[in-house]
């Protein structure tokens, strides 16, 4: 007890003294690295810790993985200070070494952390040897051939170790090296070096699984002064391309126009047969439009007897007025030929009354010129929209008064029966059907009718010329115009235009007239209305044959100048259709056929 206590006290005192004196046990050493240059031997280096002011000795101990035997380092000298060299006999491959370093001095010792090492993973060869770089003169130009030898210690011959080489080249002034991989070969050709310059070359190697060796000492090589051929090649290429560019430019210049045509194709102009753009540009619109005139159309015959012209009146509740100037114009164009593939209702072929409004105004020079205005089904309602439109597209042209569009007489009540029709400065010679119709002797009072304000200057939009529409057409020249019928639907009511009397009055007769010739007797039905009478106010009163009670349901003042065409709701069986008549024509008696149809042929105005 006393001894141990004394020892303790002594140790404590010794420590104090030693601390006071500045000595201490050694610091912990540290194994820095172990390397094997050829996979046959290896060396480990350590870093000594603080020696504690006293001379310290270091010892390296190692232990193999499958035994507990601790060995000490066999050779402390070969590899230098603080190193341990393991020679061939002491080196085993594919075995883990557990290595520690112990630092000992008078006051104590210190053991480093153990390190596990497998020799095959720490292979780092020596540098290659005998690096030579020579300039080789070649047809394409000189280049440098660098050659070297393997490090002496590495046994590549037997395949024990496989080395891969790498070299790097740069000029003295360059910052970065140019690196090249040479694989397993021991030479390399370096191209693209600048003439008359000095280059530095270095080589290193690496085992297949290991660390790179250090770089060799620098080898210098100087390139000879030569003219690189590539420059002349570039000169040739430049000249050639300049030549090509010149040729291309010249070709483009010569073919300027076609190139321009190709790149910027001209905008196609309007293709209207017979339309002469030049004339239009020159400003003489009359001559331009002259060419558009189809001579001899519509057929102006005096075959009064043959012509059975119908004034189609329909009372479709869903009448829609598609009033679009554009459509009009288009349809004007389309209907120029008046070719109608329609079933026949309302087609010009069937000589129904067609009133077409054309875009281009025409002077009444041509005697057989007809102007047509088309209007839509019936709906005046959309005339509001037309109102909101600007001037009718076609109207400006036709404000000469050529065109008169007839509103469709419809029997069904319309919400807002605004009629707009275009009426330019109507020549007194022109008659519209309503006028003509006003000559009808009062035969019957149609149940309801619409009245067309006379000489309305208002505008109504014309619906697109649909073959299922009703048209009114009046002949400018007094020739019996084909009267397009309204072919809307079953609800159309037809009035047959029988003749046009010399005063250009349309004599209409209802198709359902029993006195009528048998030809049209079948038409009598729902779709046709019979003209009852023509009032003194130029109101054509139509009446359905069926319902006799629809009489005089409507009575509208023609002079009201109202734009609206009121359609009162008729009693059911009645589908009144009203033609608005435009006054202005001296009243002539319209020949009303027995079956109630008005013969419009009689009524055609003469000019």
């Amino acid at each position: 007890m006393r001894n141990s206590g004394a020892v303790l006290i002594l140790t404590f005192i010794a420590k104090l003294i030693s601390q006071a004196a500045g000595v201490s046990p050694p610091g912990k050493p540290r194994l820095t690295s172990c390397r094997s240059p050829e996979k046959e031997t290896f060396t480990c280096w350590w870093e000594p810790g603080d020696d504690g002011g006293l001379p310290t000795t270091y010892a390296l101990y190692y232990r193999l993985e499958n035994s507990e035997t601790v060995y000490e380092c066999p050779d402390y000298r070969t590899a230098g200070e603080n190193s341990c060299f393991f020679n061939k006999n002491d080196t085993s491959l594919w075995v883990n070494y557990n290595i520690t370093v112990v630092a000992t001095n008078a006051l104590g010792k210190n053991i480093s952390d153990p390190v596990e090492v497998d020799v095959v993973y720490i292979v780092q060869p020596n540098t290659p040897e005998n690096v030579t770089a020579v300039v080789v003169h070649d047809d394409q130009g000189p280049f440098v051939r660098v050659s070297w030898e393997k490090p002496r210690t590495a046994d590549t011959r037997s395949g024990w170790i496989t080395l891969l080489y790498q070299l790097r080249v740069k000029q003295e002034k360059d910052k970065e090296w140019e690196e090249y991989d040479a694989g397993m070969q021991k030479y390399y050709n370096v191209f693209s070096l600048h003439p008359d310059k000095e280059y530095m070359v270095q080589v290193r190697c690496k085992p297949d699984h290991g660390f790179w060796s250090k770089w060799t000492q620098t080898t210098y090589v100087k390139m000879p002064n030569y003219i690189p051929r590539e420059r002349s090649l570039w000169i040739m290429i430049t000249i050639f391309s300049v030549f090509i560019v010149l040729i291309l430019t010249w070709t483009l210049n010569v073919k300027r126009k076609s190139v321009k045509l190709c790149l910027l194709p001209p905008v196609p102009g309007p293709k209207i047969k017979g339309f002469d753009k030049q004339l239009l540009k020159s400003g003489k619109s009359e001559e331009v439009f002259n060419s558009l005139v189809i001579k001899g159309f519509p057929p102006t015959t005096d075959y009064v007897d043959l012509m059975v012209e119908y004034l189609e009146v329909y009372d479709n509740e869903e009448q829609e007025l598609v009033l679009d100037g554009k459509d009009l114009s288009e349809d004007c164009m389309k209907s120029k030929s008046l070719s109608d593939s329609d079933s026949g209702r309302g087609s010009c072929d069937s000589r129904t009354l067609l009133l077409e409004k054309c875009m281009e105004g025409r002077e009444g020079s041509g005697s057989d010129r007809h102007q047509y205005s088309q209007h839509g089904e019936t709906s005046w309602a959309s005339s509001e929209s037309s109102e909101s439109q600007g001037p009718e597209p076609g109207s400006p042209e036709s404000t000469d008064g050529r065109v008169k569009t007839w509103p469709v007489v419809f029997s069904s009540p319309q919400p807002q029966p605004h009629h707009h029709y275009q009426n330019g400065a109507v020549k007194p010679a022109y008659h519209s059907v309503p006028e003509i119709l006003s000559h009808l002797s009062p035969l019957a009072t149609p149940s309801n009718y619409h009245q067309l304000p006379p000489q309305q200057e208002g505008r109504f939009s014309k619906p697109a010329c649909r073959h299922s529409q009703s048209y009114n057409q009046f002949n400018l020249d007094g020739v019996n115009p084909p009267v397009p019928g309204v072919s809307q639907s079953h609800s159309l009511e037809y009035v047959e235009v029988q003749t046009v009397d010399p005063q250009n009055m349309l004599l209409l007769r209802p198709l359902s007239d029993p006195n009528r010739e048998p030809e049209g007797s079948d038409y009598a039905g729902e779709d046709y209305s019979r003209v009852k009478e023509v009032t003194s106010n130029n109101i054509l009163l139509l009446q359905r044959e069926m319902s006799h009670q629809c009489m005089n349901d409507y009575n509208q003042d023609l002079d009201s100048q109202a734009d609206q065409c009121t359609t009162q709701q008729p009693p059911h069986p009645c589908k009144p259709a009203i033609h608005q008549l435009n006054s202005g024509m001296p009243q002539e008696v319209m020949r009303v056929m027995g079956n109630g149809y008005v013969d419009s042929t009689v009524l055609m105005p003469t000019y």
Partner: protein
Amino acid sequence: MTQGSRLYFAVTLMCAFVSIHGVGLNDLLERASQLSDKLHSISTSLTNDLDSHFPPVGRVMMPRPSMCHTSSLQIPNDKDQALKVPEDELLSLARSLLLAWSDPLALLSAEASSLAHPERNTINSKTKELQDNIDSLGAGLEHVFNKMGSSSDNLSSLPFSSNSLGQDKTSRLVNFHFLLSCFRRDSHKIDSFLKVLRCRAAKKRPEMC
């Protein structure tokens, strides 16, 4: 003979010639060395991936390398010993090692996807790559063996008994790492032996060795 049948005959003759002489031994060994090199490189990178996020406790838990299932195989430990070994023995050593790893690699491959490691996907793909390469190398070494015409085929049996890496994820990870380290070392052995064989056979090409 028509043109077609002549062509067919020529092709058949060529095929027969090739099959008799086949690819030269040098080329076979060259190809085998390349494969083994790749095998070891992949296993090294796999080890690095695993080490990147390895728990310190794992290192303590890690079994000793002597516990690899192939440690019983007697192999040359240094160059002198290795260079004394005849070629066919070297080849059989390589083949035995290779054969011993086909089952463990399958296990590793199965476990790689569920490893508790952030680099799991990379590890998984590399493990699969290892498996493929091992199969190719095994087939190649078979050809080499047939080419060398050894009389006996003394392959050592190195059984791998375990069929699971562990119960909990840490032990699974640790065992995975351990198995991989065993494989890495064995792949280095195979590579070294094959490269020795390669240089021994390539007497006509001294520049390569």
